């Protein structure tokens, strides 16, 4: 039985099968006040799930675009406390699933017991900590899981079968597949490492598999939508925000990706 918004979302996308459209935004970029409107625009454009990034001073897994987004958010005074406020604000008008997306240290400093309870009361559905390995995860994720929140972990092209099994075991909601080795950022071509990663992860879990890193164009999103249960777009959206795109431009960009993904799904079911 689905117990939260993330699980309900993927349940609702099973039939007819559609890929979830997942958008990453750095909360507080360009300002904490602006984020709820950006999320609303993305939702209107067809985004199914929001990864709400908590900015961190030293984002080692991120490329230049998201690094710059984190810097802008930190300069605008964004803290984890403010991100929770942003989530509450989003929840006033929307039931879109929210995944808190950050690095270990801000969460560790906040305290995981408190984070679990505050995430829950703010209406956040789960968490992904980029630099929290499954080996280290158990004590930290315990209060999160006990609060009924999802814990999403990364699987990578370098992950061995033993590791993929662990990642699948520790994940709930979905598994995030890193489509290629590297940092976040837009790339001209999709990596050929994604298809084998989907196939090998699938052996260990029935959880939805969402793919991200390097997906920014409608064509790329459409291709990934055929392979995975979810498509994550991050840097392309953060770049739009860096260009001070207004709500209608953000919405239009999301819609373009959504339509490409849905077109691919329709073509796929017609061919079956």
């Amino acid at each position, binding site marked *: 039985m689905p117990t939260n918004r993330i699980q309900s979302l993927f349940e609702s996308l099973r039939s007819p099968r559609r890929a979830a459209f997942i958008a990453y935004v750095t909360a507080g970029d360009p300002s904490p006040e602006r984020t709820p409107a950006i999320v609303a625009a993305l939702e209107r454009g067809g985004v199914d799930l929001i990864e709400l990034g908590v900015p961190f*001073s030293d984002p080692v*897994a991120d490329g230049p675009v998201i690094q710059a987004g984190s810097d802008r958010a930190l300069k605008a005074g964004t803290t984890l406390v403010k991100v929770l406020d942003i989530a509450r604000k989003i929840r006033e008008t929307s039931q879109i699933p929210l995944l808190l997306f950050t690095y270990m*240290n*801000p969460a560790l*400093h906040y305290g995981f017991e408190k984070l679990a309870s505050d995430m829950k009361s703010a209406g956040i559905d789960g968490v992904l900590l980029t630099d929290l390995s*499954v080996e280290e995860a158990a004590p930290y994720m315990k209060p999160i899981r006990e609060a009924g929140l999802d814990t999403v972990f990364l699987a990578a092209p*370098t992950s061995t079968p033993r590791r993929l099994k662990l990642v699948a075991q520790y994940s709930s909601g979905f598994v995030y597949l*890193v489509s290629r*080795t590297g940092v976040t950022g837009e790339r001209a071509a999709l990596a050929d490492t994604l298809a084998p990663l989907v196939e090998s992860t699938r052996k260990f879990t029935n959880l939805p598999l969402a793919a991200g890193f390097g997906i920014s164009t409608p064509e790329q999103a459409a291709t990934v939508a055929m392979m995975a249960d979810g498509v994550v777009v991050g840097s392309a959206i953060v770049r739009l925000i860096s260009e001070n795109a207004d709500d209608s431009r953000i919405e239009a960009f999301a819609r373009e990706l959504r339509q490409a993904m849905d077109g691919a799904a329709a073509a796929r079911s017609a061919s079956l």
Partner: protein
Amino acid sequence: MIISQPDSTGHFGPYGGRFVPEALMAPLEELEHAYRQASADPEFQAELADLLANYAGRPTPLYFAKRLSEALGGARIYLKREDLLHTGAHKINNCLGQALLARRMGKKRIIAETGAGQHGVATATVCALFGLECIVYMGEEDMRRQRLNVFRMRLLGTKVVGVATGSRTLKDAISEAMRDWVTNVHSTYYLLGSALGAHPYPTMVRDFHRCIGVEARAEILKREGRLPDQLFACVGGGSNAIGMFHAFIGDEHVKLIGVEAGGRSGALGEHAARFAGGSPGVLHGTHSYLLQDDDGQVAATHSVSAGLDYPSVGPEHSWLHDRNRAEYTKASDPEALTAALRLARTEGIIPALESAHAVAEVLKRAPSAKGQLFIVNISGRGDKDTDIYREHLPELDQPDANQSNSIPV
């Protein structure tokens, strides 16, 4: 008896571990496996021992600093002369070990970070020696203040990549090196330069520097017939300190003193004294003491010495700190500069600014330590810091600068 070995998952008590993106987890497992095999391989050990002796210049002298001891009027002070090694600092010990390991693993591309440039120079050196491609990440601020080392690296055939993010110092150089590694993980070996980062780096780097303390321990027993009372080493990431301390950890009566950078003041952002102003946190793959703000953001740091200017510290030091086995103190920028001058004028040894922090603590403690034996690790020589010494001692640049003792020591 204090045991200081990591457990099988790389934890020193609550510290250490492996906090990296999943893409780096399997490569770290591979590295750990390769390191274990190499450690147990007599051929690997023999080749390393040969290079350390005949290329790097080990063992380094343990020098009795007679004039300094007499001037301070207390403890008998010995200097462990890592500054006499090839490339001018202890860093070469680790670089030779890791370069041999990289070669054994079939990696042809080496990346590294550097703060003061000593690890960068040592990495550039071993890459030249083994014919490996070498890229060194260095904060732009550090490139400015350690420009001599930037040129040395380039002379050795290394590409130095300036890092313009964050504080443009060692922290940002490590972040950028990690980004390179995660991108080029199949071809690339990350030659991390301190006892930091994710397991197995803190243990591996310590093991490659362990010779410092092993030699010092044997030598002092031979010369003085007893163990020292206090050991001193500066602590940035903590590689020279853990290398010096490790062989003495079981000698409970030997005090281990780590000296951090006190910088300009005790305010957050003005120093790099993790044990004075930090709390446990996660940065660059490891759980350790960290200078951070109320929101868990990593704090800016300052030190006159680029090699100590880092917000976290090797996890084994955090463990030794919490177990009260080692004591951590700090020296300010002016104290380090004064100590360097004092050592230069009493012993004819210009230390690296990093090492001068350890000397500064010796100056404080020696006068009241009559009958005690001190060993201080001179982890590097001061040539690279000439620009900074000049900046702080403009009177010596005057045409009529007194050549003898115009500056009181």
